Structure formats: C-alpha cells, structure tokens
C-alpha cells in the first residue's frame, strides 16, 4: 500500500513549467497555517498597534505641535507611520522563522522539493505582510471616532505598496538568516541595528522636517522615507508624486531583495 500512488498520474509525473505564483501560494499557505492553527498570536498582533497608537499618539501631538504635521491632525499624520512600522517590523522578521527551520531539517527538506527559489522568499515575506492588511484596516476604522478620515481604497493601495516593499525586505531578512546560520545572534544584531536608524530617519515616529539638516539629507537615501511619504499621501486620500516615489522605492527594494536572496540561496546549493 505504501508505494501506491493515489492517482496514476502522480508517480514521476512530468510537470510543466512551474509557476512562481502557485509555488508562492503554497509557501505562503504553509506559513499561514501557523497563525491559523494558533489564532491567539493574531489577536495580540491586532492589539499591539492600537496600544502604540493610543499611547504614543497623544504624546506626539503635545510634544511637537501641529505645524510640523503640515496642518493635518496628529492622528492623520501618525497612523500611516504606524502602518509602515508594522510592515517594517513584520517583514524584517521573515528570516527569524526560517532560523528554526534551518536548525532542524525542515528547510533542507523544502529545499529539495521542486519549489522555485524566489517563491520560498516571497511566500514567507507575504505571510509577515498578510496580518498588516487586517491590522491597517482595523486601526483605521477604530480611529474614525477620533477624527481620522478613512479613505478605504487609498489605504488598500497603500497596503499593496507596503506588500511589495515587504517582499524585498523579507528576502533580505531571509538572506541574512542564511548567512548567519549557526550564529543566530548575528541575525538579531544586524536586524536590530539597522531597524531603528531606518525607522527614525524615515520620519515614522517624529517629523524629519523638525530635525537638523544632516538628518534631512540622510533621510533622502532611505527608501523607507519615500514609503512613509507615500502612505501619508494615500491615507490623506490623495494619489500624487509621493505615491509614485513610494511605489518606485518599493519596487526597487523588492528587486534588490530578491536578487540578493536568490544569490544567497544559490551560493551553495544548485
């Protein structure tokens, strides 16, 4: 019985060209099984941004003062930043789940299947991005009574752009986990060391316009800056140049991330 194929076509079936999209879906779905089988983690991930918004938002408003926000309400300015921050934290963790699988044989087992290399990274990155869609919509709705103006289609577009960016960051995180195999602390060291400067220099937490000149210059070289600006424009219900530049930054990050990631995977394996 053991060697019996369920349908005759399965045994050594010659497969057509594999689609990265279906492969990505399989990888994504396997990753999603973890939170779906254990929904508590999802509930916590929904509460977290609300806590942050509720506690940091009021302080921000009174500490900085309205003019720095370009005349918008603090909430309107800060909420898209929080969404970018969740995306940043989530997708930069892509490699950390991989680390566990590297220690056992499960990564190797999956590497030996015909799944395409890019799907391994994209599927995992998208899993870190998926909760963001729910989180972003939820905090938007929750903030409506506090004066936040919700533009659902703009917000959705903003989430898609963050998804593209997340694929790139996730792939980089994936590559970092591979490089720091057997030295897990390196992964955390690099991830944490890069995360905070990137975050602060993008104006997520506080407006960069309020900072010294060198910070403004540094922020121009930070892809995250363009994403934050794009999200702010979109959350305000407009689609303009900031959105365009944000999309470009997201696509460039995705391209760079995937190239680096695939090279890292292929460096040793075939």
């Amino acid at each position: 019985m053991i060697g019996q194929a369920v349908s005759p076509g399965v045994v050594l079936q010659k497969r057509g060209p594999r689609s990265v999209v279906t492969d990505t879906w399989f990888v994504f779905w396997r990753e999603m099984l973890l939170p779906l089988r254990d929904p508590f983690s999802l509930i916590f991930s929904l509460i977290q941004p609300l806590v942050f918004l509720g506690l940091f938002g009021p302080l921000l408003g009174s500490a900085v003062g309205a003019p720095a926000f370009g005349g918008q309400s603090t909430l309107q300015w800060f909420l898209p930043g929080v969404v970018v921050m969740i995306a940043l934290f989530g997708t930069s963790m892509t490699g950390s789940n991989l680390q566990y699988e590297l220690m056992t044989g499960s990564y190797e087992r999956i590497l030996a299947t015909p799944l395409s290399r890019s799907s391994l990274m994209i599927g995992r990155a998208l899993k870190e991005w998926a909760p963001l869609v729910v989180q972003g919509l939820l905090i938007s709705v929750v903030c409506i009574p506090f004066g936040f103006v919700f533009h659902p289609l703009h917000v959705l577009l903003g989430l898609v752009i963050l998804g593209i960016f997340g694929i790139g960051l996730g792939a980089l995180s994936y590559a970092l986990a591979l490089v720091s195999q057997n030295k897990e602390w390196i992964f955390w060291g690099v991830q944490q060391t890069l995360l905070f400067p990137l975050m602060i220099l993008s104006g997520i937490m506080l407006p960069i316009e309020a900072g010294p000149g060198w910070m403004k210059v540094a922020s121009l070289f930070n892809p995250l800056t363009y994403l934050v600006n794009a999200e702010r424009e979109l959350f305000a219900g407009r689609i303009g140049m900031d959105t365009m530049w944000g999309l470009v930054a997201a696509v460039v990050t995705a391209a760079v991330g995937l190239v680096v990631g695939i090279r890292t995977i292929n460096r040793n394996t075939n």
Partner: protein
Amino acid sequence: MTVIHTKKLTKTFTVKKETVEAVKGVDIDVAPGELVAFLGPNGAGKSTTLRMLTTLLKPTSGSATVAGVDVQKDPAGVRARIGYIGQGNGGGHSYRVIDELIMQGRFYGMNTSDSKARAETLMASLDLGDLAKRTVIKLSGGQRRRMDVALGLMHSPGLLFLDEPSTGMDPQNRANLWEHIMRMREEHGTTIVLTTHYMDEADSMSERVIVIDHGTIIADDTASRLKANLAGDLLAVEVAAGSASEVRGLLGRAAAEGDIQENAYDGVVRFRLRLAQGARLAPGLLKEMHDAGAPAQSLELKPPTLDDVFLELTGRSLREGAEV
C-alpha cells in the same frame, strides 16, 4: 540505461583557509531499480555525494546526471523527479503532522484531495495514524523519523535518496522502516540510494554496497561478493599442544595469505586465520588434520562482516569510526 551517472564528481570545501577535499572525483553508475548503500565512516564523503546528487550542494567539478537530468544545468528538473529524506527531521516544529504531509504533496504538484488521501495512507502504514493533529515538536524521536519517511514518500518518487535513514531508531522501528522501503520498491521498482554507517544494515538490506573512505570509492560490489573476495571466513581451530607443528603446516598450505595467529594455553594451541571460502574448506581441513594424527579439539567458523571488508581495505575498523 542508468538512473544515476557521475563522472569525476568532486567537492572541496574551504575551512579556515584550508582546502578539504570531501569527495575526490567519484564515478558512480546506478541502474533502474537498484538498491545501493554508500557505506563508510562519518566524514567519508557519503552525505556530501548524496547532497550533490540531490542538488543540495553544488559540485566543485565533474558532472552528474540524475533521472536523466544534469544536476548543474537543471537542478529544479532533478528535484521534481526525486525524493529525498535527509539526516535531520523534515517536519517544521510547530506544524501539525497532517498539515506538513499535505503541503509536501502540494509542493510536488499533487492536488489537495490526492495529497490528503496519500497522507492518510502513509500515516496509517507508518503507525502515525493517531498523530495527525499532533504538532511535530510533541512527537518522539522515532515518530519524527517515521514522519520524515512519510514526507519523502508523499509523491511516490521513482528515485529515492535516504541520508542515514535509521540513525537514532530503535531496532523495531528500523525493521519497520525497512519493511516500508522494501515494499515500495517491490511494488514500484523504485531505485533507492542510501547512506549508512551501520554495516549490518548495508549488509542485509542492500544488493550493492559502495564503500567510501576519504572521499574515494574503495569498493563497489554486492555485499556477499565483497565479503567473499575481500575478507573470507574467520576460522579458529584448537588442537593439543603436541600436534601444533603438523597443524601449523597444514594451515599454512590452506591459507592463501594473511597471518595465522597462535595462542597457547593449558596444553592447547588455538589458531586463528582468515580463509576465503572457509566454510567449504573446513570439512576437508578437519579430515586432513585427523589423518595427520592431529585432530581438532574444537572449531569455530565465523562468516565475514562488511566491517571485516572495511578493515581489509583500509586497515581501520568501521566500528571505531562509526561512533565518532
């Protein structure tokens, strides 16, 4: 026609600026339906060879064709045509057994219902039936290993690689595992290539044994021929001290080569020697001794093991190297 064909397949690693030749230009041909074991001590290059054949490692030089596909030109094509059960546990720690099995089938292009049915068949026959919803981390070592086998068999591969499949398994589970592999082979003519450092396993299960040491193939034949040609039976015979010299002469003529060991105690001399075809020669030898007035007081005949073969080939015992 061959399922596996390698030519001067080589892998070198650089460890702390020193170049280590893990596999030194091996030529291997495996025909469809063969069951081949790579036998050798840890670090001999067995797993490295296997990992090159399964596209998990890039060869430094040389070539390999697996299931008709070049491992370097079309690694994805190779992966689609083979099954691989690695040394580690393949199930993700936090996943449910059934979920991992179904996803594995999906990875190989099976649809969900086929994959589910196949997973249930495999779980039943590998005694994992009650554990479908258990998370991998809660499984015992033996259960995890059986799950690895189930993962490797999900898509019913025509060519299956197993890296140290039974390491860490108790004897009963080992026997179980082999029963499954053998049945699969019988029903589908699956070609099986495995590595092991258990010589009894290579001996009893495989038709063909490729002995690897220091990255080189040092022997490649059936287990029985390897033993007959390279080791011979171990013969121990005891005679009264008075007739030792006659027996020494007789044994010297019978033994083609190799030293004859001698121990004397309590008026008895014990001779030990390796004798090719020893089981066939022993009755004649006893008669000759009897006729020469030097009858044997006792005789012990031990068939050779693959360890004896390895010892003969390398001067080292596989046993010593096995547990390093």
